[in-house]
């Protein structure tokens, strides 16, 4: 199964200005440990747009339409990494910068057929302190808090 990660930086002008940058790391969860995924990178393509919305629509309120709408003439600078998954559970860690906000967000994917499903995701609009979220994620995936914190 393939998993996509998005790293991008975007300056939006419309319908209001926002400066956003996101880098993503992903880990396979196995036996209480996290194993960083090896991925192949390429440039963003319009066929990635729905996955992009799925990833960031609720998490940081950013959609492909925003990116198209707001960027004036600058190309959307986004790298897509595709990672092959063997395991069942994946932890994604996002380093996010939105204007003055800087923080770490998490999501947890269950890689079941036919579609992987998201069983946990932070939302920048409703963000508990990082400690609380780390605790929640750690319980959910059975990995020590320290490891989640450092991921």
């Amino acid at each position, binding site marked *: 199964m393939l998993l996509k990660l998005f790293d991008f930086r975007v300056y939006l002008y419309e319908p*209001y200005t926002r400066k956003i940058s996101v880098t993503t790391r992903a880990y396979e969860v196995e036996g209480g440990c996290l194993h960083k995924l090896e991925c192949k990178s390429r440039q963003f393509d319009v066929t990635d*747009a*729905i996955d992009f919305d799925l990833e960031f629509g*609720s998490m940081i309120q950013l959609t492909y*339409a925003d990116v198209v*709408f707001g960027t004036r003439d600058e190309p959307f600078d986004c790298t897509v990494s595709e990672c092959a998954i063997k395991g069942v559970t994946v932890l994604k860690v996002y380093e996010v910068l939105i204007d003055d906000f800087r923080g770490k967000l998490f999501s947890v994917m269950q890689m079941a057929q036919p579609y992987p499903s998201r069983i946990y995701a932070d939302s920048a609009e409703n963000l508990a302190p990082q400690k609380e979220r780390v605790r929640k994620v750690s319980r959910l995936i059975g990995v020590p808090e320290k490891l989640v914190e450092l991921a």
Partner: protein
Amino acid sequence: MESSLTEEHPLLKYSTIKDLSSDELEAVVKKYIQVLMPKPNVDYKVYIGKAPELREGEGLVAYTLSPCPNCYSLVTAVLLRRENKVYERKVCPEHGEFEELYYGDYDTYERFKRWQEDGKGVWTPHVPITQFCPYNCGLCSRHKSHTALLNIAVTNRCSLRCWYCFFYAVKAGYVYEPSLNHIRFMLREARKVLPYPAVAVQITGGEPLLRDDIVDIVRIAKEEGYHHVQLNTEGIRLAFDHELAVKLREAGANVVYTSFDGVTPYTNPKNHWEIPYILENLRRARLGAVLVPTIIKGYNLHDVGAIIRFGIKHADIVRGVNMQPVSIVGRVPKKERDKLRITIPDVIFEIEKQTDGQIRREDWYPVPTVAPISRFVEALTGRPQFELTCHFACGAATYVFWDDTQEMIPITRFVDVEGVMEMLNKAAEDIRSGKNKYLSTLNILSRLGKYVDVSKAPKRFRSKRKFLRYIYNILVKHDYSALGEFHYQSLFLGLMHFMDLYNYDVSRVQRCEVHYVMPDGRVIPFCTFNVLPELYRDRAQKFFSYEIDEWEKLTGRRLSDEVYVRNVKKLIESDIYRKAYEGIIDVSSIPYEDHVLASKKFGIPVIE
């Protein structure tokens, strides 16, 4: 359960589910969501790689996504500036180029843009993201605004036969009329959307007042947690049934939205003659009205000033005038569209002209302007609040007051709206970053007076204390009865420009806050429900409908018996009619033949 399913026309025999309870219905109807969702490569294609080019003399405003008006394929569109107006241009590889006026004044576009704020999104989506917006409704988790006003269509029957409408039962060829339990299920589903479940609902149709159980529907809406219930009606039944308005109010209806396209029979052939009686019956029932004119260039644009004056004349019962620049439905050639097309700034400028500058362009603000009020109350209470965060190009509003001379005084003349909103934003930020709530509130109260210049207000507001008390009650005590009182002494003026296939902008619809609940429980933005009807409204309503014969057999009625025939003579004879228009138009100067012709031309027969 009988259902015949073909790729193009999936259908369910509605009579097989009409007696189910709302819980039973939930299990049944949700199964059909997947069947009814738009299908890529069947209903639309996606061509979003290449953006249309700009030409000489044009400047880039933004790029967006938009459907092709002919085949619904999603294409990249450009918003461009030319001669201080904003246009949308898009090119479909199959159907060529389309260009449309998007916003009639670039300066207003820029001024309004400053107020954009986004909502908190949808935390409990009804459908997963599997398709491009707007083919993934909804709501899906990319949607940015909660439901500010939920619409529920309770019938597609109508007693009018307006020439432009293809939606009513006889033309559609089926009767869509969900059972009371089904309505309850839909209302419940719509309230499952978090973080802020819908609290305001508009019962619409077809003509909702044709349902004999309309009073029960209002009651159900209240029971399901909708504090604000409004009816959207052409009002014919209200004009003649003296008791109906009372029953509706007693059941919990808060206001009636009624179409009102102008002050003469020529500009308002839909209900010019009935409006005086509708208002009279609402007055007796103490049920407020909002007048809803659809504004069309070359048709009734010259009436906007008179419409506002009519609203003020009846301000004891009319709470607002909500103007809607025309949304050009269906596929219309460019030349024809240019004759009709009007946008929000064009209407605002025309109002300025027709009110001799009493309501000026600067008096209008885009809808999200009031978002700081929600942010502040949210910071104060720690609970998500109702917020208005649609796209700035979707709507605009102002409040007008008047004094003894009947001169209109917009709120902006004596309240520094920008100053107040800035102060609230700052206070919300302070509270969020740990400042004491009570000190922040006290600070606001002590500074509020700075933003109000009561010497410029209408006489009855010249008491600063009284005016500040209104604001204090609303902001701090969340006592909206104050707002009610405020309403009775002012007129709300609103503008909402529903989109159509030619000016569609995905960035707007993702922020839409006016939604419909569908019979399968999905919640759909107004501007996909009505603009892509074959994919949403018609598909779902047809699926959950009766065949006309079957409905007539079940109810013992005939659709043809419901057609309204107007008795113009009788309607214009009475004092109620004459007095309603007194000082606005000279009704005696309109020949009887003109009345009859206007009605007939519109499609409403007349008893002669």
